[in-house]
């Protein structure tokens, strides 16, 4: 059931069992688990059913540190939240992403991938994906075999892209909750304070502002913050009446360790040794729910041996990797090499020569055949895009600024920072990829990373906001425990990627939903359901 908060009389006190703040993928997938259970759930969404200027103004903030788009453009304060502009990429975190990795200064998760496995399975159903979605053998048969790397130093994995026809954040959720009898969605309801008991051990109520700035109150037995990776931290920091540093911020971790997925659009390109190199596994294919396509990454053993974070290699994007323009580069080079008199003296020689050098076996035999007998056969140049894990560092953070929004709340400041370790890892990773690609006779890698890496060309953000209320069983090292409960507070939980202690290279939404389902199961037990 949808309700407009502006129609709730001032100073009303709403009683419910669970109060969820935010209606993005985390909050809604959590609430969905309570549909028809008899548990009363109130969802407080600051925005409306459609994007409107008032709500957008509440997302304004300041960007310092690395360049980042306007914060109003990359966050959606509307029913459906980030699900409205979600790209639809689905893959789970790898088992090693959960590990404590002291050699790269990374805390681990309080549990292993096995803990989340059943919830990932349930989340697949949520996205309308089949149970064998990540079965490499299955997709090898359908899409083509993945490349074979010697000693399995590079592994191939499947991603899915869920299309809008399958998952449209707004439409799907509207249909689901419109008829719900026990889940109420309050629109245009902005939480401005979280009030705990005198000992600050248990949350008693939320203060909610309407657009006319008058307020009402929501009391519940359990509270879940699901406002996004930036806003979760902001909201806790704003609640400074009972704890000066902000609620749940006893050890100063709220807002710290902001992580994004780091992208180098010009990471590298691959000159295949064999023009017949099968790209099918990585190009993927269209399916009823969207696309299934492959990526590469260095093996866990290599990541550990060389102290690296987890970067995936996409063979360009699924929409433009294999287009005619890219292939035509190879054809142009090929034509010029086949007739050296056509080569312009001032051209980038390497671009052409790299097409020829490839693998000795190939060039010395098949290459000659191809060049002489099939001069127009396209030699592919494959763009390699690196998308990877940012290591958590405390200087990368969100904090409160001086400016205030129309409701009197301090706006957020995003200070995104990467470290020299992140830069070193990118440099090492491209070299290792080049080594394994050459060793496996797949081709040669051309490094396009600038010397200063991210200092020269800032990473392209994905709007994946992670780590600002990170999970750790030790309160001195994290904000929430293994059940996503804020340390010291009995009944305040956080849903969403802000709890990620590490980010892996997978898009976060799938893991967000799996965690939300797990949290729902946990609270069902707490509530005796």
């Amino acid at each position, binding site marked *: 059931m949808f309700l407009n908060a502006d129609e709730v009389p001032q100073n009303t006190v709403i009683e419910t069992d669970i109060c969820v703040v935010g209606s993005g993928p985390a909050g809604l997938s959590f609430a969905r688990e309570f549909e028809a259970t008899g548990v009363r759930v109130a969802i407080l969404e600051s925005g409306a059913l459609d994007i409107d200027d008032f709500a957008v103004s509440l997302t304004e903030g300041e960007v310092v540190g690395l360049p980042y788009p306007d914060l109003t453009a990359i966050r959606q304060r509307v029913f459906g939240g980030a699900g409205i502009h979600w790209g639809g990429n689905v893959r789970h975190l790898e088992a090693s992403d959960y590990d404590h990795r002291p050699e790269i200064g990374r805390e681990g998760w309080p549990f292993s991938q096995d803990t989340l496995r059943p919830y990932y399975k349930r989340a697949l159903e949520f996205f309308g994906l089949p149970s064998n979605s990540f079965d490499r053998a299955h997709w090898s048969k359908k899409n083509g075999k993945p490349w074979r790397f*010697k000693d399995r130093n590079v592994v191939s994995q499947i991603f899915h892209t869920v299309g809008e026809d399958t998952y449209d954040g707004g439409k799907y959720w509207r249909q689901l909750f419109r008829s719900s009898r026990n889940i109420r969605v309050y629109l245009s309801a902005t939480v401005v304070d979280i009030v705990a008991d005198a000992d600050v051990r248990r949350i008693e109520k939320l203060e909610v502002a309407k657009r006319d700035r008058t307020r009402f109150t929501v009391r519940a037995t359990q509270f879940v913050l699901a406002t996004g990776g930036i806003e979760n931290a902001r909201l806790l920091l704003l609640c400074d009446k009972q704890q000066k540093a902000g609620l749940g911020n006893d050890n100063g971790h709220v807002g710290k360790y902001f992580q994004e997925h780091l992208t180098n659009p010009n990471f590298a390109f691959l000159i295949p040794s064999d023009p017949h190199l099968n790209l099918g596994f990585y190009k993927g294919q269209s399916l009823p729910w969207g696309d299934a396509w492959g990526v590469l990454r260095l093996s866990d053993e290599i990541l550990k041996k060389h102290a690296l974070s987890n970067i995936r290699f996409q063979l360009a994007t699924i929409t433009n990797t294999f287009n005619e323009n890219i292939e035509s580069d190879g054809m142009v080079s090929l034509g010029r*090499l086949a007739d050296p008199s056509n080569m312009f003296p001032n051209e980038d020689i*390497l671009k052409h*020569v790299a097409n*020829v*050098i490839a693998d000795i076996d190939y060039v010395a035999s098949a290459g000659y055949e191809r060049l002489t007998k099939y001069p127009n056969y396209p030699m592919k140049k494959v763009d390699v895009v690196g998308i990877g894990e940012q290591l958590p560092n405390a200087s990368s953070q969100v904090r409160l600024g001086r400016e205030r929004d129309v409701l009197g709340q301090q706006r957020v400041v995003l200070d995104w920072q990467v470290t020299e370790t992140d830069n070193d890892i990118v440099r090492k990773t491209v070299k290792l990829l080049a080594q394994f690609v*050459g060793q496996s006779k797949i081709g*040669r*890698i051309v490094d396009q990373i600038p010397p200063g890496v991210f200092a020269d060309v800032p990473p392209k953000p994905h709007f994946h906001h992670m780590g600002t209320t990170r999970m750790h069983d030790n309160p001195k090292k994290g904000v929430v425990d293994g059940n996503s409960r804020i340390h010291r507070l009995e009944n305040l939980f956080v849903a969403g990627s802000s709890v990620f202690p590490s980010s892996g290279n997978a898009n976060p939404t799938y893991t967000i939903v799996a965690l939300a389902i797990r949290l729902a199961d946990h609270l069902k037990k707490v509530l005796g359901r």
Partner: protein
Amino acid sequence: MKGYRPSRRHLLLASCSVLAIGMATRASIFGGPARIVRALTAFFPNPDSARKIGEAVVAVPDFSLGSGDAGDRLDRSLGLVQWEDSGGSPDELRARLNDLVRADYASGRIHPVAGCYLSETEINLCLAALEITA
């Protein structure tokens, strides 16, 4: 290489350079024994490309693959004298080159040349091509 005078070693180097890079050469450049000419002409003729890579290597500041010139390094690693004494089979030379390149990649002996990661053997071949034809 200034003052170039063809020698047996250089002729062999020329042949392996061209073999490895997938380019045979023009007999008029190298002259030499008939078997080398036969070996070279079995491959694609484009020595310009090898030289261009060699030039790119030379342009890298402080780039070094060890003592001596590229020809010396290849002479040692390929055992060119023994190769010729054993009959000078192009297939055997190709196999030796492949073994060296594989070993380079397996042990990470690779370097970016104008961005393109190449093995030390490949780089030596290109440098040798530059030395021989300069």
